[in-house]
């Protein structure tokens, strides 16, 4: 093993976060070096580690995950990294799974915190829909997926770039087309305020009332799974939860959301959580800083009035 900690993601923002995680690990233990993996071409906007490895040939980082995995496998068998960290995106999970099988190594997953202890990689991760933190370790070398948002981007610019030729790789599946999701202007990941709608909203048209409140508060509109998945009132990109978007705004305002564990898992890192629900026993109140037991159809207009009143007296 070379002591190198490789980091990669097809998403440039996640790639920088994972690189920062790799660099933090390398800083904690003598003899380890953090490396950003780029494929086909260098992405200047990916930084956070002190070294870069450019894998030439094959596909770029956003190519089919099977090809990305094979590229890294070829380089890894030659360059022998000690750890490979992959951003836990949908494609990243496939890359990591394939690598662990190809390289016959252990595989950790969804790490939110990583450390090196007694020659093993230790990962903290959420399980049981966020009820429990599991601490799991693997012998080295190993692969781990790293949850987006776990590490903050840093400005470390790689001072050295190594190149490695991986050669041609054929994919078993054929990608016919790729299109951007129609998520409109929703960017829940970077929103400071999120207004989130649940089953307490009785019909689709009523969402406009919540959208107005979101506008007043300069926030974005999210929802719990039933609204996007079962009812189809909002596109899937608005779905906050375990299988949807994971968010951590300054303010999360849950309106008519009961607070199933799968939903809480997607918003529990919010700075402040407030909730409105008619059921005083709804689990959302246990996961909230501020709760109002009441009807969102009365509270949303009241909140808008209160906002106007505040701004008027300023």
């Amino acid at each position, binding site marked *: 093993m070379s002591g190198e900690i490789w980091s990669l993601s097809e998403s440039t923002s996640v790639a920088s976060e994972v690189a920062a995680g790799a660099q933090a690990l390398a800083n904690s233990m003598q003899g380890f070096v953090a490396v950003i993996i780029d494929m086909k071409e260098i992405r200047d906007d990916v930084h956070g580690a002190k070294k870069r490895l450019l894998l030439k040939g094959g596909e770029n980082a956003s190519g089919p995950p099977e090809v990305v995995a094979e590229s890294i496998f070829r380089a890894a068998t030659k360059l022998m990294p000690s750890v490979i960290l992959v951003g836990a995106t949908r494609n990243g999970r496939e890359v990591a799974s*394939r690598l662990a099988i190809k390289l016959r190594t252990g595989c950790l997953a969804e790490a939110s915190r990583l450390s090196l202890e007694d020659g093993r990689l230790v990962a903290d991760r959420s399980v*049981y*829909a966020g*009820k429990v933190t599991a601490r799991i370790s693997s012998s080295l070398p190993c692969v781990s997926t790293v949850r987006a948002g776990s590490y903050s981007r840093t400005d470390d610019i790689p001072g050295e770039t190594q190149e490695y030729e991986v050669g041609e790789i054929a994919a078993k599946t054929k990608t016919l087309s790729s299109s951007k999701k129609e998520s409109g202007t929703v960017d829940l990941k970077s929103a400071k305020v999120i207004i989130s709608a649940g089953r307490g909203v009785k019909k689709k048209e009523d969402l406009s009332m919540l959208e107005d409140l979101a506008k007043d508060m300069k926030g974005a509109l999210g929802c719990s799974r039933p609204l996007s998945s079962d009812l189809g009132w909002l596109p899937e990109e608005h779905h906050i939860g375990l299988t949807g978007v994971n968010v951590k705004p300054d303010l999360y305002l849950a309106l008519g959301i009961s607070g199933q564990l799968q939903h809480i898992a997607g918003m529990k890192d919010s700075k402040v959580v407030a909730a409105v629900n008619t059921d005083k026993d709804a689990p959302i109140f*246990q*996961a909230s800083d501020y709760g109002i037991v009441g009807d969102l159809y009365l509270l949303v207009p009241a*909140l808008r009035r209160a906002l106007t009143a505040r701004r008027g007296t300023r």
Partner: protein
Amino acid sequence: MKIAVCVKHAVDESELKIDPSGKPQLDGAATKMGTFDKNAVEEALRVKAAAGGEATAITVGKAEAKKSLKEALAMGADRGVHVVVDPGALDPRRTSELLAAALTKTGPYDIIMCSEGSSDTYTGLVPPMLAERLVLPYIGYVRKLEVSASGVRAERSLEESLEMVESSIPLVVSVVSEINEPRYPTLIQIMQASKKPVQELGADQLGTPDSPPATTVLSMSAQSSNRKRIIIEGSPDEAAAKLLDALVKEGVIQA
């Protein structure tokens, strides 16, 4: 068309109790079929309805995992395969090794259907690990699936994009939960499920050596929620004003 659908008999996270020392009580915890696995079963049944053939539900787990197989059979699967081994809650390598061996032994299958992840640990590694072990094409996070005799065409749902992907069969597919609405079995279907065949396999019959796992679970501890849990009283207008005051004080909205 021979379809295999992989299901996990999972800990019911909503019923999971935490003991006074802050550890989850996993022994004797309530269990259920993984929430998202129901979407995989539903999709397998839809493919079967459209293309004809047979759907086999397969699971790896302790004796009680049979409950999830029974549920898949009640939903409409034709037979079950139960690998009676506890793979350890968080070792996808071992789970995928046992599943791959069982699929090889009881197959061949044209489509191996999985969900995107289990509702208890949600690691999402087993489906691509299966494909890698079985040297099959893999399409993950599918939200629309069209199957013909020669192959499949699938729409993948990624974080920010949708991809149309084509593959020959056999292959491994994982589906996201918005792909369908799982059916509820009727009482008659539940009763009939007990008559459907379930094949039991042990690790020794699968020729998978019980190699020491590369990963070890060091500890499990309850996540503490430090929320204030303040209930604001008053009329809607009073409560709204009080809430805004509190949020301004917290510094999360502008005054």
